[in-house]
């Protein structure tokens, strides 16, 4: 009897493919969004089976939480959007054929891939500014990528703001339900607590700024949706500074280390861990506020 572990992986992989197909062939937009939320759940399980807990955390935060809210939030407007004509049968056959060719090419490449020389990691990790290998790569070896990634996130918010013509503060329509308000009052401390916990663990175990920021964003969106908090417009007052804090902090650290040691993002000996934590703190604030801004952008008074 084949071992349950392999059976689990096999079943998980097949259900991913089947669900992907069903999501594309969904009859209504809502069904596509819901199927995609379940797809995110199965993806999180796949990351678990691939020994990638960090990615599972991120996928859980994004798949189960944010993407669902963003998609469902945009659903009402999306259903009213006028769409160009559906592509003709020949175009669809072409797409299908090229999809098949792409799969064969990829499968051949993956199966015949030679084992490659391992990265010189063992001797570099002890010198890194963080114990956990993934955090060490994200915030020490390849910190430059993370800096630009936070720039992409801030840019997405700026781009969403640049679309809005009306200056009235965005106001997502609340779901007035007393039960929800009491749950949010309960969830809020837990969310902040677990965000801090995930952030702290990031240094030496799976976790980190992105997962913590996403949990805080979810708490913020719940606050907005349950009308517990007067809607705040992130474009006014100190909010833009808070939103940009992660990016500006990262640039400041880069320029600081550039001035100090002549190489950007080369942490001084001993000071690495503290700087990494500082950067993670800044990233968490930026990620949380960015997702809240992205959720409530385009919801000005006239919208709902």
């Amino acid at each position, binding site marked *: 009897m084949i071992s349950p572990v392999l059976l689990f992986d096999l079943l998980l992989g097949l259900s991913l493919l089947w669900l992907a197909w069903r999501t594309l062939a969904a009859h209504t937009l809502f069904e596509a969004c819901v199927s995609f939320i379940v797809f995110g759940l199965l993806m999180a399980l796949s990351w678990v089976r691939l020994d990638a807990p960090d990615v599972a955390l991120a996928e859980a935060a994004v798949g189960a939480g944010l993407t669902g809210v963003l998609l469902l939030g945009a659903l009402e407007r999306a259903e009213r959007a006028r769409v160009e004509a559906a592509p003709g049968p020949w175009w669809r056959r072409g797409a299908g054929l090229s999809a098949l060719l792409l799969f064969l090419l990829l499968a051949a490449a993956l199966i015949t891939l030679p084992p490659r020389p391992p990265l010189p990691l063992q001797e570099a990790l002890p010198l890194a500014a963080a114990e956990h290998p993934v955090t060490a790569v994200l915030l020490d070896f390849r910190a430059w990528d993370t800096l630009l990634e936070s720039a992409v996130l801030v840019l997405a918010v700026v781009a969403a703001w640049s679309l809005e013509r009306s200056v009235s503060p965005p106001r997502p329509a609340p*779901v007035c*339900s007393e*039960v929800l308000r009491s*749950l949010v009052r*309960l969830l809020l401390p*837990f969310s902040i607590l677990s965000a801090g916990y995930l952030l702290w663990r990031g240094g030496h175990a799976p976790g980190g700024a992105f997962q913590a920021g996403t949990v805080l964003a979810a708490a913020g969106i719940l606050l907005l949706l349950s009308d517990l908090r007067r809607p705040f417009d992130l474009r006014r007052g100190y909010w833009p500074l808070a939103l940009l804090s992660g990016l500006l902090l990262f640039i400041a650290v880069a320029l600081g280390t550039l001035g100090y040691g002549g190489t950007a993002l080369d942490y001084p000996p001993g000071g690495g861990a503290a700087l990494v934590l500082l950067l993670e703190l800044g990233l968490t604030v930026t990620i949380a506020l960015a997702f809240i801004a992205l959720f409530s952008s385009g919801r000005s008074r006239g919208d709902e």
Partner: protein
Amino acid sequence: MSVATLLALSLLAGGLFFFIAGTLGLLRFPDQLCRIHALTKADNVGLGLLSGSLALLSGSWAVALKLLLIWLLVMAAGATVAQLVAASHQAGREGDRD
């Protein structure tokens, strides 16, 4: 097979049973409100038993506490979801029949 493991296995079996019952309820029950009822069973009882068995298996209080916390959160979320969906369904019924 110590007593604790035996107890854990039985709790595990119980948990699975309620999960399966919850899913069957979701598929078979004709009316939406019944489905909500079935769903919350899987939440609190199913997951509760499952967490209990895993807490026993893990044998550490820290893990047991974390499992308890997760279970409570899921139950709270499940109850709220049940209420929200029922209210929205009720509102839906007064308006256009779906």
